[in-house]
């Protein structure tokens, strides 16, 4: 049996590598021979920016380059070696995500066969294998986020902080994970060995125990809301949380500082401030696009800005407060919600949560038939519905703004439906085992 699953594992990896190499090669052919390119427009932007750096200039000389200069440095071989270098790097990161998913699930005692299916959910997801091969850099971000998770699971707090600070500098959105990271690094993070000890991970079990982990959370009954708030906040002030917060913050400001010194306000405006203040009136999946277009000539009031931020804030806080100890689950839901409630939403953002989905699959009670399929069909169907109206607007020139906006509302409803289904069918399982005193059960590891 062990030989069979090992062989299957190697076949999955080999097939994934072959698929990506074939797609990169095909992409080069399509770009050279067909009118419509396979390569993403963003890849051309990265390559031009890298060429500008290679010539001694700034990456921001290239219009619409809105990334850290690190990406341009990474793609320098595009002009020195081969234009497909970047795509190979992104595809390699994509494969690394598969490896990290396997590592995380193995650390939690998930049996090999279940792990393979979870990894397949990433490696053969059409959204994901096209992203890297078309030249999108998101797989690098996904790999870094998973690496931070692995470091936390292995007790390497400083290493986690290093990569976390770096990846927030690179892409900003992982900042939403800051609070759950701090919460899990709190009082109960380290094992019995003490604050510097390696944390103990809750293991997967085929007998999914729903109640056990939750009831172990509160040892003492709080006398008041204020008291429980005080207990909660004081549990967050530990050596690990302070180290993590200070070091990751320092990393972020150090990288930002270095590039501000090198490239000035161009860097700050394009790579940082643009993403924080971006309001794009052009059509995209977000429900806010038409509202933004209808107000683009007169601007927005403070109330409107707050109103568009409030639902995002509410749902992020609720998810963090409720699920942060089941860290992969919390990160997954937060990312889905962040993308769904954001003011701009494009298809490349989907990989941000697709890389976290395999981490929660072994803990779901939802079977593929039929609830799982229903979620997939609802989500993809509402997306296709939106794409149909977008095609009529952009490529047929028909005024279907209202229909397209409604399709965006339908897509938000679909995302909400999927989130609720996932929540209702998830077996909550804290990532880090609480201390023995709290009486939590450790599920027996089963092959």
């Amino acid at each position: 049996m062990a030989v069979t699953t090992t062989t299957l594992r190697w076949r999955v990896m080999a097939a994934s590598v072959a698929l990506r190499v074939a797609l990169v090669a095909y992409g080069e052919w399509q770009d050279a021979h067909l009118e419509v390119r396979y390569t993403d427009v963003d890849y051309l932007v990265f390559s031009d920016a890298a060429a500008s750096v290679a010539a001694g200039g700034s990456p921001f000389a290239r219009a619409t380059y809105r990334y850290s200069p690190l990406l341009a440095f990474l793609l320098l071989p595009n002009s020195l070696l081969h234009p497909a270098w970047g795509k190979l790097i992104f595809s390699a990161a994509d494969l690394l995500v598969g490896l990290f998913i396997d590592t995380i699930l193995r650390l939690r005692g998930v049996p090999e066969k279940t792990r393979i299916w979870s990894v397949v959910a990433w490696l053969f997801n059409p959204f994901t294998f096209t992203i890297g091969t078309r030249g999108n850099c998101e797989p690098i971000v996904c790999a870094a986020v998973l690496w931070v998770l692995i470091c936390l699971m292995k007790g390497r707090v400083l290493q986690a902080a290093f990569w976390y600070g770096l990846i927030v500098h690179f892409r900003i959105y992982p900042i939403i994970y800051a609070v759950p990271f701090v919460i899990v690094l709190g009082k109960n993070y380290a094992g019995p060995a003490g604050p510097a000890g390696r944390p103990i991970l809750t293991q997967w079990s085929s007998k999914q125990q729903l109640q056990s982990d939750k009831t172990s959370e509160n040892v003492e009954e709080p006398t008041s809301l204020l008291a429980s708030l005080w207990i909660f906040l004081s549990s967050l002030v530990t050596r690990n949380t302070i180290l993590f917060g200070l070091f990751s913050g320092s990393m972020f400001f150090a990288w930002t500082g270095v590039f501000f010194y090198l490239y000035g306000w161009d860097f700050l405006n394009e790579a940082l401030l643009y993403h924080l203040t971006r309001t794009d009136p052009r059509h995209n999946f977000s429900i806010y696009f038409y509202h933004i277009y209808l107000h683009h000539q007169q601007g927005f009031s403070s109330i409107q800005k707050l109103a568009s931020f409030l639902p995002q804030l509410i749902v992020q806080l609720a998810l963090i407060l409720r699920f942060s100890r089941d860290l992969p689950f919390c990160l997954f839901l937060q990312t889905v919600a962040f993308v769904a409630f954001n003011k701009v939403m494009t298809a490349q953002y989907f990989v941000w949560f697709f890389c976290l989905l395999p981490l929660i699959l072994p803990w779901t009670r939802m079977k593929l038939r039929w609830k799982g399929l229903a979620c997939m069909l609802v989500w993809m169907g509402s997306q296709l519905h939106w794409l149909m109206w977008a095609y009529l607007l952009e490529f047929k020139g028909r005024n279907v703004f209202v229909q397209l906006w409604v399709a965006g509302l339908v897509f938000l409803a679909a995302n909400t439906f999927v989130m609720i289904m996932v929540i209702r069918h998830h077996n909550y399982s804290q990532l880090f085992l609480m201390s023995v005193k709290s009486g939590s059960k450790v599920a027996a590891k089963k092959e």
Partner: protein
Amino acid sequence: MPCSRTYVADAYLDALTGQLAQHRDLTEVPETADLCKGLDDDLDVPVLSEVHRQLVGEGSHRRLVYSVKFGNCEDDAVKFLDGYAANLVIIEKLPSGVFADPFELQHFVERKVFLDVAVFGDTNLELPSALSNRSAVEIHFDFKPSTTMDCNLVVELPLHARYPPLDSSGYATVEFGSPDLLLHYRKKDTHPDSCIWVSKNLDAEPVDKAVWRVPCGNGAHAGFVSSLTFISALVCSMSVVLAASLIS
């Protein structure tokens, strides 16, 4: 024409946008009027007989297709091209609401569809019409013997529509003005690195009007769209919060 004026459209910029030209840095060449002496004497430069321009395609991404015919091309053009290298230069001053993507056009140069191309003015690819300025495109197209055998040059310029200002009719109308057509030519034995070309305005007659209808938002929708957007977001977020709170 000296190198510093390789792009003719530099001269249009103040009229268009008041912005600085985006052109390559080239070394100044002293006036060489003497070199031009005698260039026009007894020279049968091809004469424009017909120019057609059509906006082709649907939606927000279309092409302006120019069809340029020269008179007596079988004899005069062939004789002319025996001794001279020539480029057709088209300058299209784009109306507000339409833009050309300089990176896309550069790809055309790499594929040798155009000899050269430049975009002047507002080259921002993302801003809506109300927040952007006008631009102009200058295309240099090789006047080759093989194309003039048919006496008909066809040039396609890809263009994209910006999001127009709001209008209750639901559509904005963008009208193109007439393009300028010039012929750049010089003797074939001129050193290839020389920047001296003779520029002749082809005096193109006003072409057929090109009109682009672009869908636009309706300001009357602002109230209900904004309200329903915020309410939907709130309802969905509270649904997720409720689901998270209710599981035991």
